[in-house]
């Protein structure tokens, strides 16, 4: 680049010098021409992201650039025509193979939709694997500990069998029942039901009050529905000791119940007073 290729620009330098009153300074003029020579004759080859930006308008630009600017052969012939040839195929045939061709021309920062869809599928697979692993873990715990199995079977039994059929089986684990005994009376007081003794039984029995009077055997069944397998039998027994005091303030409703639990009491009574 010699700096003397465009007379118009020389004029602009001349005008600038004369503006500043330095038109006679030849050495300054040549220095300014040197400075102007810093401008290269060709545009720098665009890097990937810029090329993508330029390629967006390539079909028309490619047609124009080689014809219009012969002075810039590298850009005109090297970069733009290749993109220009590729894009028209996409426009002409928007079918399967053309889309593949379009994918090849994705700019640097752009990801294809197909890739993102694959990522989503991968997420679903990972989620499924995690859930499966957790299920396996829970199964292993259930297999190793008996308590867990029992409690699960209890809850399942309570949920799916509203009428207490398995109450005979539940009392067998006698350990939970004593613990529940002291607890049972307390909620009954809080609930406001007059007799703690019936607290265990009463909530379940009121509906079947007639049945309670009729048979002791039937009477035992309703509690199972109310509290599950653990509570029903013990409440009757401990409750009865308090019964004598309660009937005084309560109605005669509870009185008929007393005779029913009494036969069972002797065995359980000694232990319960100790707790209270």
């Amino acid at each position: 680049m010699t700096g003397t290729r465009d007379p118009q620009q020389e004029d602009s330098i001349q005008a600038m010098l004369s503006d500043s009153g330095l038109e006679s300074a030849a050495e300054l003029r040549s220095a300014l021409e040197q400075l102007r020579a810093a401008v290269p004759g060709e545009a720098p080859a665009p890097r990937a992201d810029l090329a993508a930006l330029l390629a967006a308008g390539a079909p028309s630009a490619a047609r124009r650039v080689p014809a219009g600017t012969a002075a810039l052969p590298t850009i005109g012939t090297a970069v733009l025509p290749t993109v220009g040839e590729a894009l028209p195929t996409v426009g002409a045939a928007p079918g399967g193979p053309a889309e593949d061709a379009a994918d090849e021309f994705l700019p640097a920062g752009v990801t294809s939709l197909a890739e993102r869809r694959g990522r989503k599928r991968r997420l679903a697979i990972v989620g499924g694997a995690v859930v499966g692993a957790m299920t396996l873990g829970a199964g292993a715990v259930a297999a190793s500990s008996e308590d867990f199995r029992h409690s699960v079977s209890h809850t399942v039994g309570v949920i799916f069998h509203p009428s207490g059929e398995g109450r005979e089986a539940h009392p067998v684990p006698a350990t939970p029942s004593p613990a529940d005994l002291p607890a049972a009376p307390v909620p009954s007081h809080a609930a406001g039901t007059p007799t703690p003794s019936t607290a265990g039984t009463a909530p379940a029995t009121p509906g079947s009050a007639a049945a309670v009077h009729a048979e002791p055997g039937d009477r035992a069944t309703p509690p199972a529905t109310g509290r599950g397998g653990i509570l029903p039998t013990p409440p009757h027994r401990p409750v009865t000791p308090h019964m004598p005091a309660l009937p005084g303030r309560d109605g005669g409703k509870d009185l008929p119940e007393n005779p029913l639990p009494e036969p069972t009491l002797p065995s359980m009574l000694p232990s319960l007073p100790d707790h209270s």
Partner: protein
Amino acid sequence: MADQLSDDELSAALAGDPSGFSAVYVAISPAVLGYFRARGVDDAEALTQDVFVDVLPKLAGVTGGHAGLRTFIFSVAHARLVDYRRRAERTPHLAEYDPLDDARYSASAEDEALGSLGGIADTLARLNEEQREVLTLRIVADLSIEQVAGIMDKTPGAIKQLQRRGLSALRELVTEKDHAAS
């Protein structure tokens, strides 16, 4: 550096039509590259491309035809240069490479191709920052006083003053150099 942008390409570019981008790039990027080179930027090409990546999508809002487009692009280039200078200030100071101390020295093919830009760049570097910017924008970017005033956020009178002082200082430096050489 002649304005090779046709009116059709210009109107397409200013309408935000990507078909004009390529023509704008071909026509104006050499001047931007020269501007950065004259200001001594290390990687002038990268900065030039940054400018166009920034500018091309925003051409739709530009008014003022050829001059407006040029002013807009060089405004962005100027801002980029300021950013570059500030970033360079924050980075650790690098000891300047002195070719005279280097036994492996050979003439730079690029310098030869570009004439004696190395010499004029050194001379320019001795001017004050604003004078240097005015002279570069006026000569390399080929902008008018008013355009330079808009880019540097100064009045045209201030730019004229800077230009006059810059030219005087440059003249002194050049003559001084000539005397030293001869």
